[in-house]
């Protein structure tokens, strides 16, 4: 084991690109060797920035090495002061630190579990035998020893993914382990799994650890030091408290509430904090019932010209239901929910009431979201129907799923877990205007209404900002505000408090309370214990257990079969790079001559070759029929516009059908087939990971690009899910009725932006695993070639060669169509 490390910040600061203020500035902090540190502080105080800086993945490499007092990096960020990791610049110390981040999805670099854990080791240039020894060992240490190494990461639960990420981190045998909210995005079961795995590791490992976590309860026994960050009166980040956990959490002089810190429940102060929380929420409920409150925030809204009162419409949605609190608005009896026609729960019954908050609780994957989406008209029920009260339906028939998007958004709104799935406009103001515009307001009116709503949500100062640039809590508030703009009577929120600090948490809780108090039926999908305790009027539990209100069938265990990498068992045993070379060898020489004989002979030989590889003509045609569908058109184009011959059969404008054009058309037709058919069949089904390995090892293409591309490909398997969610979000916001073309393009754009964002955070995860450094990578997987590959290459060279030679001897050979 290497020597334990020390981290030293001296007057250190960082400013993110395009921001006015530094995230952190003038920070002095020393972390000694082998310490176990909990880093606390409200959202946006810069905890993640600090961890990224230590891990050497913040900004660009050169910035750390420059000696000037303020260094701009290529990310557009500014660094000042000093940061030393084991006495080195963080960039040089890369590999000694391992960083584990909050989002499990963003840390899955490659498709297969084993490859993911091996990725960091390859970047460190570890020898292959050692790589796989460490991969197995670290998977065992995080409790995933049972998992097949070839299992696809897309089929893992959040808790499993996060443990794979942890395994990848510890496999690098770092002397510093940085854990950035490792359980924030997980359900209680996943969180337990991950914290247990961390405990096991930290008991034995001497590494220095810095943990960022909003709730410290589960971690106290392994922590030796707590550091709380706060802001001084000038707004600079400083260490507010620093000491042993028992000391810090028993110190009544620390203002935990305003620092955004949850006190672990074993300390006496925690009870007082809970009491204050209860009081605040109660006070909120009381102020909501005060009729003056709602109008009070929109006093400026008076149309100057006409003097018309614009307040009334702004608050109408809040007022109109006051009389009908506690009435059932949505209900179902004997409903079956599920997806793709498969039911996951039968005989589901529920009733949601106006003005009440109902919590849908249960583990991840239990079907909470399926239920919520069915209720909100975004997914069809498998059997039965979601019924709505006549007041909510107001003239509409059928279940919410049968309504148009515009009809839906006025009645039921869904706030997605990831706010970014939901954004449809470029500014905060426009984002909120959507709801008003879709429900019939004119532009001017919508603008004023939106502004007043933003003011109520304390977002008006961002009205011209881009929604994506807001903080996590602000984004959440904005999605709620924009959903309320279409004045729905039912508001459904998916995990509204995920990964929020205490202050933001409280903000969201208050918001939900006041929305409910205005008469809206609020339904929250969550497993946040505090949220359930403080807010729920009613809890519906979903799960496989006996005691659950809604029982789901046990999820069947997925068995992963290795996917065949070709239609042909023979071809699938070839090296992927060789398969590409084969395709080129078969097709490119055919360009030498344009004549029916060489093309026809080659085509026949190719089909025989495919037959020999185990792909029958019928199966081959099943995959290449589009080529046969296109080729006649190519034929036609050559017939009428091709090179002119001596005998003209037909003439009209630019169109000349001649003896030569007919001959060339026939030759082109055959050659298109002879070239395209094998080029498709040979590469169909190649596994991208295998191809990347072959590209770097056999073809010696630059590895950073090969594996960067591979990571990009994996990202796209995630994006099909994103596509679905973006579509549902648009329906829920009233934009689902647009023309198909418009819908397609706007949705594609959202997906593109989302994928760029995902790839940006993926690059950080890759860098944290040592990717992109100058070191020589090693290979965890070997890309082999064998005698089979050489046989295949020879056949693929022989086919066009013999076809062309034959044409040459028969005199039909025509170089370049001459």
């Amino acid at each position: 084991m290497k020597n334990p490390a020390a981290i030293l910040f001296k007057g250190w600061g960082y400013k993110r690109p395009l921001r006015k203020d530094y995230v952190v500035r003038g920070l002095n902090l020393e972390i000694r060797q082998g310490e176990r540190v909990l880093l606390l502080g409200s959202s946006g105080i810069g905890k993640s920035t600090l961890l990224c800086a230590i891990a050497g993945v913040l900004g660009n490499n050169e910035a750390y090495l420059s000696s000037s007092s303020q260094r701009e990096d290529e990310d557009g960020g500014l660094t000042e002061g000093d940061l030393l990791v084991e006495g080195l610049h963080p960039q040089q110390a890369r590999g000694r630190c391992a960083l584990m981040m909050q989002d499990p999805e963003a840390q899955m670099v490659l498709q297969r579990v084993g490859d993911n854990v091996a990725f960091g080791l390859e970047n460190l240039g570890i020898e292959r035998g050692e790589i796989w020894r460490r991969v197995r060992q670290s998977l065992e240490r995080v409790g995933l020893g049972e998992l097949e190494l070839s299992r696809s990461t897309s089929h893992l639960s959040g808790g499993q993914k996060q443990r794979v990420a942890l395994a990848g981190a510890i496999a690098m045998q770092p002397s510093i382990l940085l854990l950035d909210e490792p359980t924030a995005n997980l359900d209680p079961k996943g969180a337990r799994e991950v914290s247990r795995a961390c405990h096991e590791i930290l008991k034995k490992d001497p590494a220095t650890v810095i943990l960022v976590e909003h709730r410290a309860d589960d971690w106290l026994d392994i922590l030796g030091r707590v550091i709380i960050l706060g802001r001084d009166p000038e707004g600079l980040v400083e260490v507010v408290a620093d000491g042993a956990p028992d000391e810090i959490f028993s110190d009544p002089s620390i203002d935990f509430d305003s620092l955004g810190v949850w006190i672990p429940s074993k300390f006496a102060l925690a009870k007082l904090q809970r009491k204050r929380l209860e009081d605040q929420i109660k006070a909120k409920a009381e102020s909501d019932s005060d009729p003056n409150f709602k109008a009070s925030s929109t006093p400026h809204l008076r149309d100057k010209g006409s003097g018309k009162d614009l307040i009334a419409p702004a608050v109408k949605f809040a007022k109109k239901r006051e009389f009908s609190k506690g009435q059932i608005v949505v209900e179902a009896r004997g409903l079956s929910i599920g997806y793709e026609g498969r039911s996951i729960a039968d005989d589901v019954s529920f009733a949601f009431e106006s003005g009440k908050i109902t919590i849908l609780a249960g583990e991840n994957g239990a079907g909470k979201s399926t239920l919520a989406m069915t209720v909100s008209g975004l997914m069809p029920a498998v059997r039965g129907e979601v019924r709505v009260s006549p007041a909510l339906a107001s003239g509409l028939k059928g279940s919410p799923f049968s309504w148009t998007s515009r009809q839906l958004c006025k009645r039921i709104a869904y706030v997605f877990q990831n706010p970014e799935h939901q954004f449809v406009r470029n500014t905060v103001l426009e984002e909120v205007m959507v709801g008003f515009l879709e429900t019939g307001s004119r532009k001017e009116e919508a603008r004023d209404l939106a502004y007043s709503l933003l003011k109520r949500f304390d977002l008006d100062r961002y009205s011209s900002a881009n929604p994506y640039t807001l903080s996590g809590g602000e984004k959440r508030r904005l999605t709620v505000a924009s959903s309320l703009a279409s004045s729905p009577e039912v508001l459904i929120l998916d995990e509204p408090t995920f990964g929020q600090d205490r202050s933001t948490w409280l903000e969201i809780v208050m918001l939900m309370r006041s929305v409910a108090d205005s008469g809206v039926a609020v339904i929250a999908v969550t497993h946040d214990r505090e949220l359930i305790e403080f807010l729920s009027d009613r809890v519906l539990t979903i799960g496989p257990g006996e005691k659950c209100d809604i029982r789901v069938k046990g999820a069947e265990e997925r068995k992963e079969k290795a996917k065949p990498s070709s239609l042909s068992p023979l071809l699938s045993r070839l090296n992927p790079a060789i398969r590409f070379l084969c395709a080129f060898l078969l097709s490119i020489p055919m360009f030498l001559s344009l004549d029916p004989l060489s093309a026809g002979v080659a085509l026949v030989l190719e089909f025989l070759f495919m037959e020999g590889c185990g792909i029958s003509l019928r199966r081959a045609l099943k995959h290449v029929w589009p080529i046969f569908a296109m080729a006649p058109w190519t034929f036609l184009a050559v017939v009428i516009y091709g090179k002119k011959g001596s005998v003209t059969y037909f003439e009209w404008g630019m169109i000349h059908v001649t003896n030569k054009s007919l001959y060339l058309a026939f030759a082109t037709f055959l050659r298109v087939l002879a070239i395209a058919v094998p080029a498709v069949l040979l590469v169909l089904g190649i596994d991208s990971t295998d191809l990347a390995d072959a590209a770097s090892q056999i073809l010696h293409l630059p590895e950073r690009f090969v594996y960067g591309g591979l990571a990009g490909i994996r990202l796209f398997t995630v994006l099909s899910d994103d596509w679905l969610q973006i579509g549902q979000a648009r329906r829920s916001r009233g934009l689902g009725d647009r023309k198909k073309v418009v819908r397609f393009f706007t949705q594609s754009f959202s997906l593109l932006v989302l994928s760029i964002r995902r790839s940006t955070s993926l690059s950080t995860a890759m860098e944290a695993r040592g990717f992109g450094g100058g070191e020589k990578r090693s290979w965890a997987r070997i890309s082999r070639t064998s005698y089979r590959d050489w046989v295949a290459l020879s056949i693929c060279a022989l086919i066009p060669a013999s076809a062309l030679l034959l044409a040459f001897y028969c005199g039909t050979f025509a170089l370049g169509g001459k």
Partner: protein
Amino acid sequence: MSSRTNFKWRAVDIAVCSVIGVASSFVFWMADFIPHDGLQAIFPGLGSLFDGLWLFAGPLAAVIIRKPGSSIYAQLLASLLEGMMGNVYGGALTLLGGFIQGVGAEAVFAAFAYRHWNVWITMLAGGFSGLFYRIISFLTDLQAFSFLGFYAISYTVATVISGALIAGIGAWWLYRAIARTGALDRFASGRAIRKKIK
């Protein structure tokens, strides 16, 4: 714009360039379903007015990433995946086409030393990308047409126009729209747009 230019690729450059390539591959693949040659038969050049749909990955990646090789890399990756999904243009062969198209666009950005970025240069790159590809295609799969004949000329002109419009103006417009969402703040290209707004 920025006088200081760093030609070394960062991890984030590679990751974003890859995703642009991967995303574009779907557009390429969907564009494969346009009855291109049928339209060509109706009037030469009619089908190739859509050709820019197969050319935009390179210019788009270049104006965002602004590093040498970004056009070639994105266009190559996009056409590789397009081919691997299986298409009428000959699977693996699509890769070669992608390489030539990428070189065409890259040549233009290289000629301006990767220092100047605007809509005109991007249009030029889109057009060149199409031109390079067309010249090669009349030397290979379109040998049945005379090189300087009516068909070849109108085909090439339409491809170049489509390249300049879709892969040039289109890519530039798309880059600006993406930049406005703040997704490109870690890139000089993204900050250039967002600074203007503020």
